[in-house]
């Protein structure tokens, strides 16, 4: 966050409500970190609870269950604000899935700052509500949906969240959209609680049905958005 003026998510990040002077003050309590795929985000202060603003890249939020399994509890994308407490002993970790750049703050510092800046405080509340919404959708996705519904929901979320910085898809425009997934098939299987065979089978089926195209291992072109929405249930 050396220079907020150059920040690519500036216009849709939580700090967009602040003026230059306020940004400078916020700068003073936060730090910018670049982390590599597989690397975890940790706060090196006494306070183990942190919040982060994702500038670039994708991270997964996960927890280790008592029997040693990793349970993925969420995925965060650029301009997302990771407000839920993690680190510490509640067992949540944020791990980069791609190379990622984040602004990190201790939650206490950030909350104290927000209390003095009502516009930011309001945005913080909105973001936290959006996170709750995402948590609930995620729980629903993991708990109730079939394999085909899971993969379709997941691709729709990717389509929505991986839009180029600063722009928004025009969802009315029905033309094909190409996204580059930050995940391997195995990672998608892990995230959705499916086997890699099931995930591959579902990809092939969607391709054969002309809902998507798969130009490469990581790229997906969404050919028929309404059909994908219908698949998601």
């Amino acid at each position: 966050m050396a220079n907020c003026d150059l920040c690519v998510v500036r216009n849709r990040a939580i700090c967009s409500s602040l003026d230059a002077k306020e940004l400078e003050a916020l700068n003073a309590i936060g730090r910018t970190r670049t982390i590599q795929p597989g690397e975890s985000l940790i706060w090196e202060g006494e306070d183990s609870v942190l919040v982060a603003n994702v500038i670039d890249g994708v991270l997964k939020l996960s927890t280790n269950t008592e029997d040693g399994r990793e349970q993925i509890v969420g995925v965060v994308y650029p301009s997302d604000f990771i407000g839920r407490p993690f680190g510490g002993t509640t067992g949540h970790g944020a791990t980069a899935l791609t190379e990622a750049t984040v602004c990190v703050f201790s939650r206490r510092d950030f909350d104290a700052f927000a209390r003095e800046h009502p516009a930011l405080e309001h945005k913080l509340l909105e973001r936290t509500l959006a996170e709750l919404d995402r948590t609930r959708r995620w729980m629903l996705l993991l708990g109730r949906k079939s394999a085909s519904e899971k993969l379709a929901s997941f691709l729709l979320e990717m389509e929505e969240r991986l839009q180029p910085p600063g722009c928004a898809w025009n969802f009315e425009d029905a033309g094909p959209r190409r996204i580059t997934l930050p995940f391997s098939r195995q990672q998608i299987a892990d995230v959705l609680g499916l086997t890699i065979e099931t995930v591959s089978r579902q990809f092939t089926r969607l391709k054969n049905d002309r809902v998507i195209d798969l130009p490469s291992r990581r790229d997906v072109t969404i050919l028929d958005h309404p059909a994908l929405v219908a698949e998601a249930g």
Partner: protein
Amino acid sequence: MWTYHPDLLAVPVPRYTSFPTAAEFDDSVGAPAFTAALEQASGDVSLYVHIPFCEKICWYCGCNTGVANRTSRVSGYLDALHREIGLVAERLPRGARVTRIAFGGGSPNGIPAVDFVRLVDALSLQFSASSPVLSIELDPRTMGSDWAAVIDAVGITRASLGVQTFAPSLQQAIGRVQPARMIEETTAMLRGAGVDSLNFDLMYGLPGQTMADLDDSLAHTVALGADRIALFGYAHVPHLIPRQRKIDAHALPDAAERFAMAAHGHALLVDAGYVPIGFDHFARPGDALARAMLSGRLRRNFQGFTEDAAPVLLGLGASSISGFPELLVQNEKNTGRYRMMLSQDRLTAHRGIRRQAEDRRRGAVIEALLCRGRARIAPDLQYEAWPLLLPFFDAGLCYRDGEDLVILPGGLPYARSIAARFDPYRKDSLRRFSSAV
């Protein structure tokens, strides 16, 4: 109409929000018993989350709560609560399903709204609860528009307002000043936010309270369209609740006046179309609580009368009580010790009681009498309880119908006293009493 029999109400009896009651708890059970019960839990599970903070402390209140005046105290408590949520959730088997979450206090809206949303997020995540029924207790004095927006967005459908009385002089006397307009605005905000079951807590027996005051508060409540009403008698026990010393005891209504107020309130609300629920709750006919009452599914729990049928209740937060079929266990009450223990990842359950088969059998009788006014009594319990119940039979408050004991409508204010005759932990005090009259 109810008849006042002072001799039959002379011995104080528990409210039986659990059986055995919290008075029977000791330190023979704690975190190990809690953990073992938790790991065996299955089926529907309800959560109760205690937020022991209020903007201002009311003088009458016996709840475990403190003033939310220091940010660090509140955030330290919430950190501990988040840790507890993680520790409890990871021990709960996957087969158990969280279907209800109740937030009580204190005043849950005494903490910042964003912290509340984080709490709901953590509970949803850790307990895999995507769409539980959410309820909350609210203080109208701290109901800002941000809270209304949060209640709407989070999807809370049930709320309970601490109203107590609409009379300004009485509000002054109990240290809870909230103009009628504030309660009206809060009600409108909550309706706008999607709350479809709204409860008003009201009190009778307040110092200086007249029958006209009570009438006025009830009329106001009915006019505002409360779906549920809990009408409690104020208990002045300053030796147990020191903050009550601020209340002037001289003008307290006597026992006969209190009885008349309860009777009057009951008649007025029934007249207004409310279904009486147990001995102190009322609900509009379409409300879930009234439906549970009418279909015989009403239950008793720590929050009073409820339609919640879950066999397991997990209490989170300082002083919260968890209930399992075979165990009742309470968390550390002191918020400082609660925080300290959780900072070391230790569960704080430290007092309680195992519910033996005999406790469960008697508990079922007590719950049935309080919730349905009728219970099947086994021969050995009849042998034991009938002599103690003689004065109640004689006064025409209850009768025997085959193996059943039935409480008559006029016996409702005596329901707890009748139920107490099946409580072996009260045997001595009740025997002493019956031999004295």
